[in-house]
């Protein structure tokens, strides 16, 4: 990006009160672009492929999104005190969440220690609990608001309100894709959109090629998974001939326009789409998997899409996000016992299989798995409108929640941070969403303070002005 010439002749300029830092650049005679890695890369609209800031173990990310919000006190954060004082008011005022909550609601699930590390996991995850030696559990996460949409945006983009690029977009922009025939960032969601829709995988001001490509996994036929992936009119030979002709047309048009990055980008995008037709249908074809792999992952759309995620990672896709479903399936405002049991059952086997399968293929070391909701749930019972608390459910809780990571250089068998004795609020070694992002980028070999993009006159980064790497969970 070239430095912008100062409009010196303009009479108002002398008295103009532009931010002082802008003046630094002008006085120093240098623009941002000449300094920032991103700025350099941005010249042709693309980031360089595979140029991390420092060596990182992880090369890919699978983000399993338990959208709606997983309850920490029922999964990874056992609270005996909650059981002991079940039915009593908490000894402090209930923190403000979306709705009114009442007395302590003990977990209906049983916790047992697992693995060599002894990390406790509830009986909601009988399969996954066997993998704790590969997992790092963070129990001291916190977000900013008890609201789905905003917390989803925070988790995905680092910003609750502005339209900002998602983690997957930043990553594919920063690291490029290893497979030019598939999108670098794929979002898998059965049956529709999660709350917040495409905003969850938007590239915002980053170039559009880094936007997540949504695939509705409720369909099993690979040709139906991606809109317009199949040509219903031409044979592949005919299409190839047509494409050659189109390339001639476009090449002729480009001749005079060397340096018009938009035109070049579009030609590349067409090329990728053309190759996706075969590559994507192959990647999404689960019938190619042997019987024992299908058995390992288990039945159902959740398990199936986790297997899909592995196939995509194998093919070099940078970032795969799996959503539990449209809307907010984990949002157990009532009857936590049945509703959490139902959703956990749907993905437990697949999550364990994903770790085992990646490990046996030697891919776990380079694949970072993150499993989290947008926030947790209250240890106190959600009050019905009549104040009865008969819901047996839990409200949103951004004050404290748990998540786990595995692979990609994460220290297995770790439990980091703590909530208060009831599991309401993160109190020890608190980890913000920005910290999580910074840590994940670190594992991927990226300095979150250096991964910047210049837009509308400012340099942006995923972590805004915040974020500290949590070294304690890194192997």
């Amino acid at each position: 990006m070239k430095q912008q010439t100062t409009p010196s002749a303009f009479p108002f300029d002398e008295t103009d009160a532009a931010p002082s830092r802008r003046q630094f650049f002008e006085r120093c005679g240098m623009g941002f672009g000449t300094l920032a890695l991103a700025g350099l890369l941005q010249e042709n609209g693309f980031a360089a492929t595979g140029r991390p800031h420092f060596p990182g173990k992880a090369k890919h990310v699978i983000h399993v999104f338990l959208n709606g919000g997983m309850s920490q006190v029922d999964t990874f954060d056992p609270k005996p005190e909650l059981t002991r004082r079940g039915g009593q008011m908490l000894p402090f005022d209930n923190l403000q969440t979306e709705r009114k909550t009442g007395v302590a609601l003990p977990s209906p699930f049983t916790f047992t220690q697992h693995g060599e590390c002894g990390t406790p996991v509830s009986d909601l995850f009988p399969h996954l609990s066997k993998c704790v030696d590969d997992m790092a559990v963070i129990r001291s996460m916190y977000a900013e608001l008890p609201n789905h949409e905003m917390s989803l945006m925070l988790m995905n983009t680092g910003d609750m309100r502005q339209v900002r690029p998602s983690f997957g977009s930043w990553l594919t922009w920063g690291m490029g894709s290893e497979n030019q025939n598939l999108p670098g960032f794929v979002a898998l969601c059965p049956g529709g959109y999660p709350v917040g829709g495409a905003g969850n995988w938007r590239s915002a001001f980053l170039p559009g090629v880094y936007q997540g490509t949504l695939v509705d996994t409720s369909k099993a036929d690979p040709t139906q998974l991606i809109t317009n992936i199949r040509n219903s009119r031409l044979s592949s030979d005919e299409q190839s001939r047509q494409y050659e002709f189109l390339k001639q047309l476009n090449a002729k048009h480009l001749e005079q326009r060397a340096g018009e990055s938009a035109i070049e980008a579009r030609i590349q995008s067409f090329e990728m789409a053309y190759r996706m037709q075969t590559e994507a249908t192959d990647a999404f074809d689960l019938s190619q998997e042997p019987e024992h792999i299908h058995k390992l992952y288990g039945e159902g759309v959740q398990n199936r899409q986790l297997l899909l995620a592995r196939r995509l990672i194998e093919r070099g896709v940078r970032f795969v996000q799996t959503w539990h479903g449209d809307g907010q399936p984990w949002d157990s405002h009532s009857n936590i016992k049945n509703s959490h049991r139902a959703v956990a059952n749907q993905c437990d086997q697949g999550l364990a299989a994903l770790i085992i399968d990646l490990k046996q293929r030697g891919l776990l070391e380079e694949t970072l798995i993150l499993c989290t909701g947008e926030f947790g749930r209250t240890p106190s019972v959600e009050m019905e409108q009549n104040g009865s608390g008969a819901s047996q459910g839990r409200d949103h809780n951004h004050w404290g929640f748990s998540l786990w990571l595995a692979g990609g250089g994460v220290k297995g068998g770790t439990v980091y941070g703590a909530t208060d004795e009831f599991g309401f609020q993160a109190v020890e070694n608190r980890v913000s969403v920005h910290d999580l992002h910074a840590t994940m980028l670190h594992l991927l070999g990226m300095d979150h303070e250096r991964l910047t993009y210049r837009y509308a006159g400012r340099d942006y980064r995923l972590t805004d002005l915040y974020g500290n790497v949590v070294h304690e969970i890194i192997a």
Partner: protein
Amino acid sequence: MRPARAFLPPATAFPMQRFILTFAALLLLCRLGISHAADVTWEQDVRPLLKTHCFHCHGEAGEKEAGLDLRLQKLLVKGGESGPAIVLGDVDGSLLLQRITAGEMPPDEDKLLSPADVEVIRKWVEGGAKVTEAEPDVVGDGPLFTSAERNYWAFRPVQRPEVPDTSAEQRSRTPIDALILSANENHPGFAEDANRAQLLRRASIDLTGLPPAPEMLERVLADESPDWWDSAVEELLASPHYGERWARHWLDVAGYADSEGYTDEDRVRPHAWRYRDYVIRSFENDKPFDVFIQEQLAGDELANWTGGDLSEQQIEQLTATGFLRMAPDGTASGGINATEARNQVVADTMQIVGSSLMGMTLHCAQCHDHRYDPIPQSDYYALRAVFEPALDWKNWKSPPQRQISLYTAADRATAKEIEAQAAAVEKERADKAEEFITRTLEEELLLIPEEQREATRTAYRTAAKERTPEQEALLKEHPSVASISVGSLYLYDRRRDERAAKIDAERKQKETRFIEETKQAELAKVPEEEREALQTALAAAQAQRTAERNELLAKYPGTQVTLATLAEFNPEAAAELEQDRKAAAELRSSKSADVLKEYQDKAAKTREQKPEEGFLRALQEPAGNIPQTFVFHRGDPEQPKDVVPPHDLSILESRGEIPENLDSLPTSGRRLAFARQLTDGTHPLLARVIVNRIWLNHFGRGIVSTPGDFGRLGDRPTHPELLDWLAAEFQSSGWSMKHMHRVIMKSTVYRQSSVASTAAMDADPDNLMYSRFPLRRMESETLRDALLAVTGKLNTKRFGAPIPVMEDSVGQIVLGQENLDGERKPVDKVDLNGEEFRRSIYVQVRRTRTFSMFETFDAPAMTPNCDFRSSSTVAPQSLFFMNSAAIVEFADFFAERLLSEAAEGTEQQVDRAWQLAYAARPNESERAQAVAFISTQQEVLAGQQSEWDEARVKREALSVFCQALLSSNRFLYVE
């Protein structure tokens, strides 16, 4: 689920990106290397930092925690409860720096100052805490602006700059060219003029959103007049499609949608399209933009309608206020928090007004003072006070309650009369129903034991509540009586059918029996001596009957009685049969349900005769409603604080005054006063904001590249003099849009080619100096319109209700009328009768259901409006061109058009295709390549598809070619 806005912590309610630490620190070192600590000043460097991080608790809106006010340097020296905040020249002794460095202040760790920021403050204190302006002795709780803020470029009056001289070789045609050339000393010069055909395609898509018609292209190419270009521009400006194109730009900033949004229910707005049509007509007629804005902000106050028939002008003015009704409005939906939902409508409306008319991020001052621009929180509410009498969150009207009927008194009278007729039909129906019930009741009673009949009748006729237990029991015993009702009559119709069938069956048996009996009786009457011969004759087959036998038979016709002659020989039997026939016919006739339905249909038909009742989606302020407007603490409507009177931004001082209640109007008149002072020709923001958008839509980038934010976080104008020149020109032209198009399009900067010399590309790679015409991809709507026009399918029908969108079976949003069965599964496709080929501006804008093709090509999300459209390049767009059913259909249409308009042969078809898609002629090699491609395609298809005739092969091969052309960059981009 909606954001729970009431929870917003104040400091996060406006998270703005700041410069990145690393670079700021690096650059700080750089800066300090060339400057002295003494250069750091309060006004330029330190105050903006404290405003962003500290004022919220120390100075703003009366907040002075620990007695400390940080708004003036002298107040820092004075300090608070803990003593002075700074000691001049003594860094270590300054409490402010101690607390900040220790990370204690600000208390929220997410809001800490960066090390670079702290360094700035440190240097400032070290250098003696310089101020460059005299500070006032006291500050109240009101806003306090520095002269830098007051002199910020966007708040200074518009001044028409001197137009500099340029040399002849610079090819400056207009003041715009001169201003652009002189803005950069190193301007490499404009590219050469684009060729006529390219220029016409550019201008045509630019002004009308459609490629040039071939006739126009040929005419312009052949025009030998020196004014050819001016005439072409005039022709395009006069096109009915001009309004449709430029209205779209305004609808973006107004946030136009055909649905309410806010909740998942996303209710349809059935009447929003009248506002869309108003905007189209306004552009088409070049309505002076000041009037256009006045009408949109205060059309109801201009119309001053107090009842009675609406005049055309009043309808227009009221329709214009639809602008203030475009924000998402969920207040008619269920399951909402009413206060929050209403407040959100007002807040979103403010955001639309702020970004579209003022270029200010007003909404950032909703919860606290604007962190970057001189907009105190009280300003936000002072502006809100302009709108609250009409958008009164305490006396709210939901969207259906705000509808204004377009009925005239005469319409109403006609409707009333027709309603009376329909009611009369319904009365007849009720009478008839009662008649049927009585008949059914009597019929059913006949089927129960006689001794119970009277009591059962009485029980049935007794109102349910008043029945005795005995009556209840009786009815329970005879459910066929108890169940009689208007709604169940159809069931009794069926029972009557069954009864009739039974009577018929019995009658058939009777017929046989009666005939046999009659025969025997007649035979008995025959004299003994003839009886035997007669019986033989009767038994004999027809052929064996002799004349003698026939004579005998004729003598006793009764022995050969048939159904037809039964009455003659046995009148009683015939009568009985006739009675049965009548009984069955009676049962079958007059199906009560059918008869009642006829009445119902008749009533509905009658009602259809009423004049159609249209409604306006408008904002109308109730007379005499002057609510108090409060500053909401942290933006929370549950925490109202000070009352504020209406006022424009206080940085504009006295020119922003707005009377609380205009005596000349029954309404408050606040919006009218605001609209008038916005458009009085001296407001510093409005004209700049509008001309910047005009420029943006011609060149793809505004002079200020953040068209909705002229504040400090927005971008500075790249060509400030040009912006002011355009603003001045716009106002002096009588706010004429079309004048601005002419002025801009006559310039060399517009007429130049999009291809620049290598030298110019090197000197100006990002085209910041406009040394070539910027290449642009068509927007989603333009792309679809161009496809329709090129392929010959465009339906140019204008105005009216939108083309509906619906979800198809695979979840794509397509054009179509939703037609679902009881289980919400799609059934028969509804024919849109060519509506599906209308221009894109008429496609329904459903917030939760964006037409998939538009979404693929970056259609804006109206949340609440769209300041600036982004343009992405992603694989799904390419897949659309490669494989979608839509593009195949367009290619087929295109091929058919070529075959009919250039029937001579493939070469002619290629020429015509080039002309339609590219507004150009192919050169020799292009033509040869295209012809070769089509021929190969024909050969392959002929070989593969033996059942296709030659015409089919030609058409299909041409269509494959057409698809490639429509997918090419030369078509998709405007150059």
